[in-house]
């Protein structure tokens, strides 16, 4: 079986999972009351009267059997309608709100993923090579401490440490909340002073400086970068542990293989044996975990963005779940977000599996 055949087979396998995910999300909507479900269809949820809700329930058959409702819901889904969000300033179709908030989360994830993966692999290999030595115990403690920490608590601790330090050194406390500081927020909101190319502020700032000749662009990029440091630290600390432990055990297994003994017997240097022979083979299973990490990342980002008041999808979903100040949960947003993350995960796993087959021929040939 060639790589192309493998990709086609893998794509076919995705279809039942997507159908299953649609069905599961539908089952979740079925657990809500008809009144709550009506919010999936209301065009202007802010100004709805009780009789409007009644009319919507009758119109879409929300109190009829599950089969009819599923059909109606699927029709809406195919048209791209996930309902109207009523959380926060950006009220509008759920899809649109998610897409406008998406770049901020991507920016965060793009900083987190490489740091976590590189650090995890580096420490994992080191602790496997120095098994049961001081270094191994130290990294083990770091890893276990990392995944035992409640991410929200770590965020709170880091915030207060930063505030204490900055107020001691500079006299006034530096505000770690949000994506940029208050003064720069005014510049960003002004379309004449700041053009949004990608929505990722560090990149946009540099692009504004380079393409439009705006010197404050660099300043905004630096400011946005400073605001990224704390959330990135939190999510990386939480996620690095799992990757570290996996790399360690996979590396320990690789070190017992026959080809390592052969390499040693040939008289290769120990660093050569580890880097060229053991690590390459140990990293193959680690690739799959990088795909699974997307899920952990999304879960972590929901909490971290809430703590740091970072304007990404995660915080929006968390606020939607409690309904902000109004109390009642925003069903349309929560359901839409759940759906969205599932698709993201399926897509990420698809790419990782294809990558895996590319790296390890045993998968596609076996």
């Amino acid at each position, binding site marked *: 079986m060639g790589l192309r055949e493998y990709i086609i087979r893998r794509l076919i396998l995705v279809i039942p999972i997507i159908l299953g995910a649609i069905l599961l999300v539908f089952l979740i909507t079925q657990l809500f009351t008809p009144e709550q479900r009506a919010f999936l269809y209301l065009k202007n949820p802010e100004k709805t009267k009780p009789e409007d809700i009644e009319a919507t329930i009758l119109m879409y058959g929300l109190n009829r059997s599950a089969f009819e409702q599923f059909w109606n819901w699927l029709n809406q889904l195919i048209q791209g309608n996930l309902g109207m969000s009523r959380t926060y300033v950006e009220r509008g179709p759920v899809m649109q709100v998610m897409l406008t908030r998406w770049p901020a989360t991507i920016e965060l994830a793009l900083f987190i993923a490489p740091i976590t993966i590189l650090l995890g692999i580096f420490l994992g290999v080191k602790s496997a090579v120095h098994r049961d030595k001081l270094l191994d115990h130290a990294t083990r403690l770091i890893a276990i401490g990392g995944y035992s920490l409640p991410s929200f608590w770590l965020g*709170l601790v880091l915030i207060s440490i930063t505030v204490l330090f900055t107020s001691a050194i500079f006299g006034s406390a530096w505000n770690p909340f949000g994506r940029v500081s208050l003064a720069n927020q005014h510049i960003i909101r002004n379309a004449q002073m700041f053009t949004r190319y990608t929505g990722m502020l560090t990149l946009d700032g540099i692009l504004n400086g380079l393409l439009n000749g705006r010197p404050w662009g660099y300043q905004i990029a630096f400011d946005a970068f400073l605001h990224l440091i704390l959330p990135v630290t939190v999510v990386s600390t939480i996620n690095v542990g799992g990757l570290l432990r996996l790399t360690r055990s996979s590396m320990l297994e690789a070190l017992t293989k026959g080809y390592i003994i052969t390499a040693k017997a040939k008289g290769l240097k120990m660093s050569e044996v580890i880097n060229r022979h053991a690590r390459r083979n140990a990293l193959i299973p680690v690739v799959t975990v990088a795909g699974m990490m997307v899920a952990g990342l999304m879960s972590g980002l929901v909490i971290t963005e809430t703590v740091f008041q970072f304007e990404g999808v995660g915080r929006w979903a968390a606020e939607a779940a409690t309904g902000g100040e109004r109390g009642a949960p925003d069903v349309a947003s929560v359901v839409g977000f759940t759906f969205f*993350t599932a698709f993201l995960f399926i897509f990420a796993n698809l790419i990782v599996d294809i990558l895996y087959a590319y790296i390890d021929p045993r998968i596609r040939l076996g």
Partner: protein
Amino acid sequence: MAYKKIETFIKELKYSPTLKELKFMLHRVRQSPLSMLGSIIIIFFALVAILAPYLAPPNPDWDVTAYPGKSPFILPRTGFVPEPQPPSPTHPFGLTSESFDIYYGCVWGTITAFRVGITVVAATLIIGLSIGLLAAYYGGIIDEILMRFTDVIIVFPGLILALAFALAIPDKFDIKLGDVLPICSVIFTIITVTQFISKRQISWKWILMENLTLVCILTSTLIYFGNFPNVGIASITMTKLDKVLAALILVGWPGYARVIRGEVLRIRNEDYVEAAKAAGCSDFRIMVRHILPNAIYPIVILASLDIGSIVLLAAALSFLRVGAEANFADWGQLVEKSRVYLGSGASFIRYWYIWVIPGAFIFVFSLGWNLLGDALRDILDPTLRRR
């Protein structure tokens, strides 16, 4: 006679490989300092949970009739001061806004943490075990169907799906005949078809099963397309904590099902299973007496040590305000009470005791389970253990 049986049992126990393994495991645990630290932490928390009524006695004067819940888990209120109060001799960990005692919450929160962890782990294990076992043992179409279920749930990020479930599950749950019968008919159909395929002979048991399946299918069709009364069977009222537990269970089982399936697939082709089949054991007996004892042992130990991560997930839900009832003794909720002050750094640091102490409880509790679990993972791994 009975005495003799017990005597031989004890004699056999002395040479039983399972016991030997357990002794070896305990020996290794005692050797590693990190796992000893983990056990000490867990024993400490267990003591706190057991001694909670003495460490933080519920106030007898406290007027329970003023509150909907009479349980000691609802935090007692000592006043109506809007500002949090720093630690003092009467309230060693301080008071939150509106004068809720943090020390009381931390002590009784230990029981909540154990309750959440143990309930969720036990339930996910039972569900995961039965589904993984069935899927791996029968294989074929049953494996395909059951594993697609787990695939679908694993696709969703845990916290987000748990959040959606915790919001969606209604307070009052009416189970009607029309909900149960379709599920029953699907399960019975699978059982009858596979029994027929594997045995290729018709016994009276099979005929009974087949008739039951037909009745189920017929009744559910009548309910949905005819006028058969859709009778309510049971109605369950769920507190907010129950909803969180249910959500965590629904999200958690597929992970175990996958692991157990892999383990059973390995064991299924062992010689002793073949021997049991040849001796004419029933499928149920082979699964429960021959496969389970060989697959379950490491998995149960490892799963029980996942309590730490489950408590973390529950605390995260509480922090997102989708947790237990208001003012319930729950560590996550105590930390959540500090979210109001997050806007300004100064007041947030001034009221440090609201979030530092309960957060440290969550961290140390989870750390204890993870320390022990991590050490056992290495000890139980047969490829690494005796080197």
